[in-house]
C-alpha cells in the first residue's frame, strides 16, 4: 500500500472509530520511518526503541482525538520528535549533566556502538552533528538525510519555514567548518 492510500485507509478507520485497525496500520506503515527519525536524534538503538514505543503509546492514547485536518504523517513525526526531545532532556536531567556533556558522551559511544555501521567519514560527520544545538541537529537530520521539505518540517516542528531555513543554514555552516579539520 502506498503512503497516500495508507493515509486514506487510516483516516477511514479513525472516522469509523476502528481505532485498533487504524493503530495497527499506523504501526506497520510508519514504524521504520519513525524509528530512523528518532534514532538520528537519540543515537543509541536501545534509546530509539524506547522512544519509538513511547511514541506509539502516545499515538494510541490520543488516536481518537486526532484532528483529521492534519496529515497522519505530520502528527506522528511531531509526537516522535517531542518524545525524543523529552527523552534526551530527562536523561540529561537524571544524570545532572552540564550542557553538551550528554552529546559528548554520545559522540564517544558511537565508536564502539555495534549498531553504528558508518565508516570513518560518517563517524566524523555524526560527531559534527552532535556538536550542534538540539533544534539545529533535528532540522539538519530531517533535511540532510531524510530530505523532508521545509513546508512539511514546519508542520512537524511547528516552526516557521524562515526559522527552519536559518537553522539549517547555521547547521551546515558549522558542520562544514568542523569537518574542514579532517
Amino acid at each position, binding site marked *: 500500500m502506498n503512503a497516500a492510500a495508507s493515509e486514506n485507509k487510516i483516516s477511514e478507520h479513525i472516522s469509523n*472509530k476502528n481505532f485498533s485497525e487504524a493503530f*495497527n496500520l499506523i504501526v506497520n506503515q510508519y514504524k521504520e520511518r519513525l524509528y530512523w527519525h528518532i534514532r538520528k536524534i537519540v543515537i543509541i538503538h536501545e534509546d530509539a526503541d524506547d522512544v519509538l*514505543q513511547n511514541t506509539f503509546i502516545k499515538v494510541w*492514547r490520543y488516536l481518537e482525538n486526532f484532528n483529521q485536518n492534519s496529515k497522519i504523517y505530520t502528527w506522528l513525526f511531531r509526537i516522535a520528535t517531542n518524545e525524543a526531545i523529552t527523552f534526551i532532556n530527562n536523561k540529561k536531567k537524571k544524570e545532572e549533566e552540564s550542557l553538551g556533556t550528554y552529546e559528548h558522551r554520545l559522540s564517544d559511544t558511537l565508536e564502539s556502538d555495534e549498531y553504528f555501521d558508518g565508516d570513518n*567519514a560518517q*563517524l*566524523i560527520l555524526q560527531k559534527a552533528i552532535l556538536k550542534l544545538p538540539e533544534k539545529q541537529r533535528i532540522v539538519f537530520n530531517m533535511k540532510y538525510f531524510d530530505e523532508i521539505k521545509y513546508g512539511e518540517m514546519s508542520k512537524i516542528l511547528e516552526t516557521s519555514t524562515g526559522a527552519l531555513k*536559518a537553522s539549517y543554514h547555521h547547521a*551546515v555552516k558549522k*558542520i562544514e567548518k568542523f569537518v574542514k579539520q579532517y
Partner: protein
Amino acid sequence: MTVENLNNINNNNAFKVPENYFDNFSQEIETRIFEENIKKQFGNKNPFKVPENYFKDFKSDISAKPKSNFAKIIRITKPWLSAAAGIIIIFTLWQFLLTGIENKNNQTGNNDSLKSKNNIVIANYQPEINTVDIKYLEPEINAYIDETDADQIYEDVNEDNNETKINSDDETVYQYFIDYADDNDYTELLAEL
C-alpha cells in the same frame, strides 16, 4: 515596443514571489554550497543499523513493553507504589463491570490485540492519570493481587505513609492514587527509567 514599455512589464508582471524571497536568496545559495560540500565529502547515507529482524519483530501490541518497565519501577520505588497501583487496578475492573462504559474497541469487533479496556475506563474517569503506565503494571500487578491478601495491600499502603490513607472504600483508594499522580510526575518517572 519601446524600452519604457518593457520596464513596465518587468515591474508589473502577474507573478509573485514569497515574501523576503530575494532578501534570503543569497543565504539559500550559501546553504546549498555548504550542503553540497558536506555531501561530497561524507554522503548522506544512514550510518546506523538495527538488530536483526528488529522491524519484523516489532510488535504493534503496546503491551509488549510493560514487563521490563515494571521490573524497574519495583526496583527503584517504594513497595507501596506497587500496592497503590494494584489497588487502582482492582478498582478499575470493578468500575468497568459496574458502569459498562462504552469501549471503543467493542465497536471494532473482538480482534483487538491491545487489551486496553482498563485504560479506557480510567481515561474516561480521570484523563490526567497516566493510564497507559497503569496498563504497564497490569500483568505483574495481577500476579501481586493473586498472591497477596487484599487487607494486606491496604495495610502496606497505610503503614508506609504512617497514617490511614486508604481503606476498603473504593472511593478513597481512587482518590489516593489521584493524589499520588498529582504529587508525582509519574510520566517523568517512567521516562527516566
